[in-house]
C-alpha cells in the first residue's frame, strides 16, 4: 500500500489535427486536471513533463515549458522521453518524488503537434544510425507491425477479418468519446476497402498521428485524505522494465534481433506486465479493463496475450466472442484506443491513465464498464522497451 499514489485530477485536450502549438493543448489539459482535482495551480510542487521531439527546444524541456505556460510559481520540473512510453516515465518520476516525500502534489503532462505523413528519420548520410539504415533499405514503421500481424496469421490462424474487427470494436467504443479524433462507426467493409499499407495491414488497421494533450494531478495518499479525496483512484504499479538479453522480437528500428545462440531468447513484452502485477499485488484475473497500445489492430491482440488476459494465441477467439467490447467480460480500449485517437506520442500513455481513472470513478458515461475496479495499460517505446501502469479503486 505504501507505494501507491492517488490520481486526483485528469484532463485532456481533444485529439485531432488542429495545427496549433503543442503548449496550448497541454495547458488546456493541465487546467482541466487542476480543476478536476479541486486544487490551486500554486499547490503543485513538481511538474513532470513528457517530451516531444518534433516541436523544437520547448518540447525537449517540456516540464519547464508547461510550468512557464501555466505561470511560474516555483515548482520543480522534470522532463522524460521514452517515445510512446514517455508519459509513463513522467508518471514514474512524479511517483518517486511523491513517495520520497519531496513533494505532495505533482502535475504529469504531455502534448504534441505532429507533422503530416510518414514519420521519417533525420537527413544526411548516416550509415551508423540503424534508423537511417532501415529506411535506406526500405523498412518503414508499418513493416514491423505488419510482420507481427502476419506472424499471428501464420502461427495462430488469425485473419484479416479479425484485425478489422478490432477496428470496428474500437471505433464503436470511441464513438461517444469527446476527446477522440475519429468519431465514426467504421465497418468491416470500410476496413477492407481501405488501401493496403503493409500486407496484411490496411490503412485502417494502422493508427494515424495526431495532435493532442493529456494531464494528471497525482499526490500522496496523505494529501488526498487531507483534501477529502481519500477514495481517489490509486496508481498501484508502474512498470518500465527493459528486455532481458537476448531480446527475441524484431524491434523498430533494428535490422536483426539479438542472437539467442548462447543465451536463451526472451520477449520483453511478457516481462513488462509481470512486474506491474507483482507491484500492484493483483493478477490478470483481477483486471476489469485494459487500455493497450493498438498501433495496429493486430497488435491489440498481441498485448492481450502479453498482459496474460488470455492464453497465447487465444486473443482473436476472445475478440470474436465479444468479450473485449463494452458490455463484454473484459473490455479492451474503451476509450477507442489509438484507432480513434491516433498517436500523440508524449500524451498517449497519460491519456490511457485518464480513461482508466474515469472508468474506475464511474464517470465514463456511455463507455462505462460496470463495477470497474482494476485497470491496466500497455505501451511500447523504441528499441524494445515499454511501460505498463495499473490503477486500482
Amino acid at each position, binding site marked *: 500500500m505504501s507505494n501507491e499514489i492517488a490520481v486526483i485530477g485528469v484532463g485532456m485536450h481533444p485529439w485531432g489535427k488542429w495545427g496549433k502549438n503543442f503548449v496550448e493543448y497541454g495547458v488546456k489539459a493541465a487546467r482541466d486536471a487542476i480543476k478536476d482535482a479541486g486544487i490551486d495551480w500554486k499547490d503543485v510542487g513538481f511538474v513532470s513533463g513528457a517530451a516531444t521531439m518534433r516541436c523544437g527546444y520547448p518540447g525537449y524541456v517540456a516540464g519547464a515549458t508547461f510550468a512557464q505556460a501555466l505561470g511560474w510559481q516555483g515548482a520543480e520540473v522534470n522532463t522524460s522521453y521514452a517515445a510512446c512510453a514517455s508519459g509513463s516515465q513522467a508518471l514514474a518520476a512524479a511517483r518517486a518524488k511523491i513517495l520520497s516525500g519531496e513533494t505532495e502534489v505533482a502535475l504529469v503532462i504531455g502534448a504534441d503537434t505532429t507533422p503530416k505523413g510518414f514519420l521519417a528519420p533525420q537527413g544526411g548520410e548516416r550509415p551508423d544510425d540503424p534508423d*537511417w*539504415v532501415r529506411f535506406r533499405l526500405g523498412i518503414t514503421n508499418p513493416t514491423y507491425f505488419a510482420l507481427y500481424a502476419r506472424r499471428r496469421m501464420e502461427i495462430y490462424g488469425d485473419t484479416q477479418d479479425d484485425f478489422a474487427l478490432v477496428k470496428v470494436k474500437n471505433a464503436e467504443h470511441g464513438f461517444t468519446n469527446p476527446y477522440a479524433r475519429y468519431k465514426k462507426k467504421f465497418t468491416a467493409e470500410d476496413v477492407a476497402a481501405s488501401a493496403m499499407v503493409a500486407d496484411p495491414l490496411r490503412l485502417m488497421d494502422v493508427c494515424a498521428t495526431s495532435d493532442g494533450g493529456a494531464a494528471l494531478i497525482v499526490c500522496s495518499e496523505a494529501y488526498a485524505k487531507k483534501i477529502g479525496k481519500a477514495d481517489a483512484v490509486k496508481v498501484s504499479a508502474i512498470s518500465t522494465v527493459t528486455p532481458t538479453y537476448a531480446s527475441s522480437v524484431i524491434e523498430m528500428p533494428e535490422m536483426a534481433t539479438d542472437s539467442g545462440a548462447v543465451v536463451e531468447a526472451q520477449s520483453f513484452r511478457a516481462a513488462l506486465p509481470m512486474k506491474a502485477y507483482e507491484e500492484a499485488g493483483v493478477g490478470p484475473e483481477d483486471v476489469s479493463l485494459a487500455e493497450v497500445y493498438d498501433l495496429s489492430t493486430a497488435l491489440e491482440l498481441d498485448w492481450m496475450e502479453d498482459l496474460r488476459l488470455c492464453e497465447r494465441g487465444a486473443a482473436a477467439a476472445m475478440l470474436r466472442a465479444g468479450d473485449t467490447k463494452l458490455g463484454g467480460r473484459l473490455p479492451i480500449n474503451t476509450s477507442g484506443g489509438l484507432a480513434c485517437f491516433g498517436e500523440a506520442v508524449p500524451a498517449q500513455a497519460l491519456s490511457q491513465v485518464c480513461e482508466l481513472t474515469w472508468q474506475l470513478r464511474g464517470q465514463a458515461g456511455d463507455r462505462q464498464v460496470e463495477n470497474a475496479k482494476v485497470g491496466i495499460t500497455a505501451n511500447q517505446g523504441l528499441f524494445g522497451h515499454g511501460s505498463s501502469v495499473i490503477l486500482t479503486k
Partner: protein
Amino acid sequence: MTEQAKPQVPALEGWFTMDSDKPHLLGSQCTSCGTYYFPQQKNFCKNPSCDGEEFNEVPLSRTGKLWSFTNASYKPPAPFIADDPFVPYTIAAVELDKEKMVVLGQAVTGVDVSDLKAGMEMELVLETLFEDDESEKLTWKWKPVSV
C-alpha cells in the same frame, strides 16, 4: 537506354560479401561468449553476463527459415531511393538457425506475399537497391530456396 554495365558496389559498406553466387551477411562474434551480432558489434558485448571487448568478423548463415513477411505498398520516405513510378516490394524476416537471430531484408524482385509461408527455407542473394550515375548499389535480399 543502353545496357552499359555500371560498377556494382555495396549499398552499405562492410555489411555483406560481394560474392554474386553465394553472398553472406557479415556479422561479428564475441571471442569471449560466442554470441553473434548483425550489424557487427565491434566494441562491447551486449550480453549482460559477458565483459567481452574483442570480436571476430564472421560470415552469417546464408539460409534460414521464414519467420514472417510483409510488403511495402507505399513509397518509403528518404533516405530510401525509389524508382519512379514506385514499385511495391516484398519484405522477409528470416530466422538463421545457427545464429538464432531474425534478419530483415527485402525479398527478391518477383516474389509476392502470396508466394510465401512461414517456415519456408530462404536464402540470401544480392540485388540492386538503386543506382546513380556512377554505380549500381547492391543489397542483400531473401529468396525462397524453392524458387
